[in-house]
């Protein structure tokens, strides 16, 4: 039982990270109807920025080893993501108002490569570490309930907490604020949104800023766990089945989808793996997403699309 729970919790923690990346996809899709292929590149870019600024800024201002340096690096990296969002709107999206979804999709593919290129030019190609001072030591819980207790990584726990807070804030933002409503309106119909005086350009900047911020948080957490390297941009591919599973338009869907896939991967690896010779973890998510697609094309929580013929 103790072992099962440990696997489960490990899966939940991993799932939380998938959720964070998936969240970036969902935000942009909800607000602009664009499937943003550049989300992975944004995570990489943000993580690179964070890693390097955390190195440089304390050096420039003599803040070595203090939290202030790390905090400053986070703020600067966040500001940089805002600049990126603004540039994307200015240089790309503004010219593609009222265009087909496929056109916008291709544009984000382009953005992904440009971001990767600029990222490695500005920040270098090596593997960096991000150290935001999260406690790394494991703790044992419930030692009196299970023999040996439950081994839990404090870092994972904090990461999950951060993700949960972020999700709470975003849900509030989308459901309760006028800006959130304007975002949903823009997602539904560009033309109509313009006609009632919603400034399309500003809305897009806002949503890409938010997505950039989510990418930064995801990048920092992934980076402090596994280090920052180029392959981080492929986490977007890992998050793809999560988005399909949860539904492209649902924030809670992205979270639950991530958790389901995280847990599913770990449990299937541990319990089914030995039967088929292991390696399940790599393809499990995709198979799960496929099965969901067969029965619920809109994902578990997505909005059902009603079309009149």
């Amino acid at each position, binding site marked *: 039982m103790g072992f099962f729970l440990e696997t489960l919790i490990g899966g939940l923690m991993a799932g939380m990270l998938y959720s964070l990346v998936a969240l970036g996809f969902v935000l942009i899709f909800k607000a602009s109807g664009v499937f943003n292929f550049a989300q992975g590149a944004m995570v990489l870019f943000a993580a690179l920025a964070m890693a390097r600024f955390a190195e440089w800024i304390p050096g420039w201002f003599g803040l070595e080893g203090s939290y202030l340096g790390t905090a400053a690096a986070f703020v600067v990296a966040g500001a940089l993501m805002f600049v990126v969002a603004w540039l994307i709107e200015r240089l790309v999206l503004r010219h593609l108002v009222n265009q087909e979804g496929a056109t916008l999709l291709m544009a984000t593919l382009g953005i992904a490569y440009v971001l990767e290129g600029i990222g490695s030019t500005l920040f270098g190609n090596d593997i960096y570490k991000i150290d935001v001072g999260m406690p790394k030591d494991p703790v044992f819980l419930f030692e009196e309930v299970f023999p040996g207790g439950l081994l839990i990584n404090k870092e994972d726990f904090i990461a999950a907490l951060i993700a949960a807070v972020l999700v709470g804030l975003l849900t509030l*933002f989308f459901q309760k604020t006028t800006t959130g*409503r304007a975002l949903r309106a823009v997602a539904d119909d560009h033309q109509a*949104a313009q006609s*009632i005086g*919603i400034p399309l350009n500003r809305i897009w900047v806002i949503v890409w800023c938010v997505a950039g911020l989510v990418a930064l948080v995801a990048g920092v957490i992934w980076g402090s766990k596994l280090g920052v390297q180029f392959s981080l941009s492929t986490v977007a591919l890992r998050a793809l089945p999560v988005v399909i599973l949860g539904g492209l338009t649902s924030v809670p869907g992205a979270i639950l989808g991530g958790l389901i896939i995280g847990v599913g991967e770990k449990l299937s690896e541990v319990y089914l793996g030995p039967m088929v010779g292991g390696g399940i973890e790599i393809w499990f998510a995709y198979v799960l997403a496929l099965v969901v697609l067969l029965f619920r094309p809109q994902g578990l929580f997505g909005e059902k699309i*009603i079309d009149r013929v």
Partner: protein
Amino acid sequence: MSRKIGEVILDLKKVSLSFGGVKALTDISFDVREHEIRAIIGPNGAGKSSMLNVINGVYRPQEGEIILRGQHFTKMSPYKAARAGISRTFQNIALFKGMNVIDNLMTGRNMKIRSNLIQQAFWWGPARREELGHRAKVEEVIDFLEIQHIRKTPVGRLPYGLQKRVDLGRALAMEPSILLLDEPMAGMNVEEKQDMCRFILDVNDQFGTTIVLIEHDMAVVMDISDRVVVLDYGKKIGDGDPDAVRANPDVISAYLGASH
């Protein structure tokens, strides 16, 4: 009728619009007076929708200008138009399908909302009062259009006639001074048309809203409009009160398809 037709509020001067080699509008001028119902009619492809899209700023004419309350606009945009108090409905309903009726109408209040994001997020003080005020206004529109029973229904599920009504509701929620209606009665049955006519007349009468509408149905147009502009092949061929337009030989030939 209590309304009184006032001064010219919207004036279009020598507007020409072309798409590549296709001339959609050629040298069109007309004006709209405050509180009146002004119709734009014409056969298919006459440039009626283009005209509306020019007023609304969706299309930018190559020549001509738009004078709104004495202010000259050579470059109108949908955003500027909305700020200036122009709202519109769409021929092929463009509602936010995933949202319910109330939320759709609330988006119409978007421009008027003053509180900032953080206040809204925490439903705090002024933001709360403000939201309640806007909700009350939206409820008024809902009562006015007699759509109380569908307030919480996602608009994607509503039948066509009701969607058209919600579309009008969203435009009304903006409390516009000028309302542009793009074929408000297209695709409706007789009963729905009568309802829509009644709403248009009531909006005009009770709120004093100036209305510019495009419509196919000649009978309806002649009944409810104060003045009518007739377009054919992007040119203005008639302008005046319904009786004068009806008697205009150019208009008759355009509609009956006599040789040009």
